[in-house]
């Protein structure tokens, strides 16, 4: 299997961020936030998403999580506004 390249990771992270903005109310103000703060916020949203779908809750973008994010779906958010 080909190893995941840094470019793949970057694309996954961008895709996941958009997904979490759309369906998990991830708030980003467009300004690059501090790595630690931004990372923990995204990680928390990934946990919420993994918990909702019954995936293993890791807070990381593992292959199961990415596969679920790529599935076609309803556009309504999964968490309360």
């Amino acid at each position, binding site marked *: 299997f080909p190893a995941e390249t840094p470019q793949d990771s970057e694309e996954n992270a961008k895709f996941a961020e958009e997904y979490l903005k*759309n*369906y998990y109310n991830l708030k980003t103000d467009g300004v690059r936030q501090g790595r630690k703060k931004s990372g923990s916020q995204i990680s928390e949203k990934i946990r919420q998403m993994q918990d*909702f*779908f*019954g*995936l293993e809750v890791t807070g990381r973008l593992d292959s*199961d999580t990415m*596969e*679920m994010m790529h*599935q*076609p*779906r*309803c*556009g*309504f958010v*999964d968490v*309360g506004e």
Partner: protein
Amino acid sequence: YNIFPGNSGWKKSELTYRIVNYTPDMAAAEVDAAIQRAFQVWSDVTPLTFTRIYNSVADIEISFAAQVHNDFYPFDGPHGTLAHAFAPNNGIGGDAHFDEDETWTSGSRGYNLFLVAAHEFGHSLGLFHSSDPSALMYPTYHFIEPSEFHLPDDDVRGIQSLYGAREVPVVPEQPSNPSSCQPITFDAVTTLRGEILFFTNKTFWRQISQESQAEHHLIKTFWDALPNHIQAAYEYQDKDQVLVFKGAKYWVINGYEVTKDSPKSIYDLGFPRTVRRVDAAVHDENTGKTYFFVGDKFWSFDEKKQAMDSVTPKKIIDGLPGVGSKVHAAFQKNGLLYFFDGHRQYEFNAAKKRVTRVLKSNSWLKC
């Protein structure tokens, strides 16, 4: 199921809808039929009625649009987000929007409008996303044959928590007595301690021996804890168990008792979360493997190890040549495997790896 926090649904039961525009992907009549049937999914189990209007604003406004479309939730081009709908309220509340960049169909190609609309109208009526993978209100799209669609129990409980159940005249719950000679499509088939059980809708045929006339019963009469419209079943004789599947759950039967720890999750068997139902299952005593059929693929499960043999399933046409691309029910008898697809049944010799006979689905039932 979940309902929208702080929203208890519509205060009236007679609702109106309007189809504001059409997708060019389908004939207008096909869109009308898909939308009408999607509403019927919900009106069948509640006191709600849906009346189509044409010339004024309706409670539920239905439209097709691409990208930005004036609601702060722009669509994203093909795939990804397919549609969205708003919780009951005035104005935009209740409205359903479908992404025009998708390919909408009344079949399995592209995205089936009926299936997506039925989900969106659940939001229009006050249901939030469910985390039950077999529920209609689960957020991800999963194609099933619309003619085989039954509103899952989770959604029925959800919508009835808001609007109550539909009042229908009480009729005795006796199975109709259709002739077993008519063509029948079975939901699932399994052996049970030497008998063969053929499940269809709320009932099952029980073939006790090859000489006897088949009995016809309601599922609930024998196993009150089992759901209707089950989708797969198989017997594992070493444990004297029959496993019965519907959606993402399965029930374990010991003879005529359902075990207390049922239902269980199919994901405990090793399925990935992308699998939301099992179409058919059969245990092959010759190999000790159980085969689970999902769409056009099948998984091999090792009963001794209680684990899937591989993380990826095989194509049915590759592993079981001649059987077709889908299996709706299956069982094993006298060392041979029998696969059902509609009104047909394929007798398959696993050792020779070929189909040995094609039979009618009801060939085991004495007419």
